[in-house]
């Protein structure tokens, strides 16, 4: 069961800050980020990739997106 970072309703840069926090905590593995705007989806994806993590999947969910980020 992967961790979930719930950044819905938060505006930038909060979703990115929360994602980077989780990346620091995990070092490797996989987790999900929930966001509710396209801007946050792009920002979170971009931030994860600059940290050497991979965006494995993005699913539309409700009003937003569920982003799966991982690093082996």
């Amino acid at each position, binding site marked *: 069961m992967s961790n979930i970072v719930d950044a819905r*309703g938060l*505006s930038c*840069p909060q979703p990115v*800050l929360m994602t980077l926090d989780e990346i620091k905590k995990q070092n490797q593995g996989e987790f999900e980020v929930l966001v*509710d705007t396209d801007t946050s989806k*792009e920002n979170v994806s*971009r931030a994860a*990739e600059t940290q050497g993590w991979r965006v494995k999947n993005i699913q539309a969910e409700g009003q937003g997106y569920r982003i799966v980020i991982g690093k082996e």
Partner: protein
Amino acid sequence: MAQLRNIFATKWGIIGVGAFIGVFAALLQKWGNPGNMGICVACFERDIAGAVGLHRAGVVQYMRPEIIGFVLGSLIAAYSFKEFRPRVGSAPIVRFVLGAFAMIGALVFLGCPWRALLRLAGGDGNAILGLAGLAFGIWIGTLFLKGGYNLGRTEKTYTSVGWMLPLIMAGFLVFRLLFPPVEGEAKSGILFYSLKGPGALYAPLAVSLIIGLAIGFMAQRSRFCTMGALRDLILFRQTHLFLGLLTLVVFAFLTNLLVGQFHPGFATQPVAHTMHIWNFGGMVLAGLAFALAGGCPGRQLFLAGEGDGDAAVFVLGMIVGAGFAHNFGLASSPKGVGPYGIAAVVIGLLACLFIGFTMRKKRA
């Protein structure tokens, strides 16, 4: 692979948008807008405040179509790409206060971040102090962000909530069409106009509106933000938005060179003063307020266009702040800072620090 279908959100997308704004802002000056003020979100919202009589500074009264275009262009983009998301409820009153003080700080410097860049691109050395202040203010903001500063979550709301600011802007456009400027008259119907000063300098309505709509559309797609550019650079060492900011300056500079609008120096620059400390200080306040509110004045307009009701409140805060700035003698003029401008900057900084220190959640 990152699923970034949105080409405007790519590196070349943001560079293209920065270039477009740079070129057309410089050209708007050639076509009639004030010097180094092809587009200035703070100045133009201040002119709108004057046009509807929230302040009565005779030289800065004009219903600026660019601002209307920004919001409506963003609305069109948001609907075209299914990104219109009505949302509200992240401490709106705080955003109003931040908007008002951001405007006051910007009017002490005499420009928003966009104009600071355009002033630099036009050779105005005072802009360097303003941009340094902006960066410093944003840096203070990043310290609060690292410390858990957060205005809370928004809630999804009625579609019509997201329509409020776009409708207000549409109403302003109707006013501008019903009551066009009359040669030699300071008033037309309910709208005030300037007979001299920057408020009397404007490009033709259609030109301003179309460029405003185009920028609004592209900026919504690309998330162009001058505050975010510096914030992301400081906070994450991320250069994405910064590339857009840089391109704006370079292209505005090149356009200015081509059309003979580049005049390097500090003294006698258009709509500018040379009080270095307050050029710096005004923008520290503005930068901090933008950082705490999560966007530069332009970005707040684009967010409001895509349904963000809190950004809309920030915009209204800026317009009301402009009223205070001119009614209370806080705004600067080419002669220097206003009689109460310095006091207002100090009070504004204290208000921002109060907001920054007291509104934080421990991050997990």
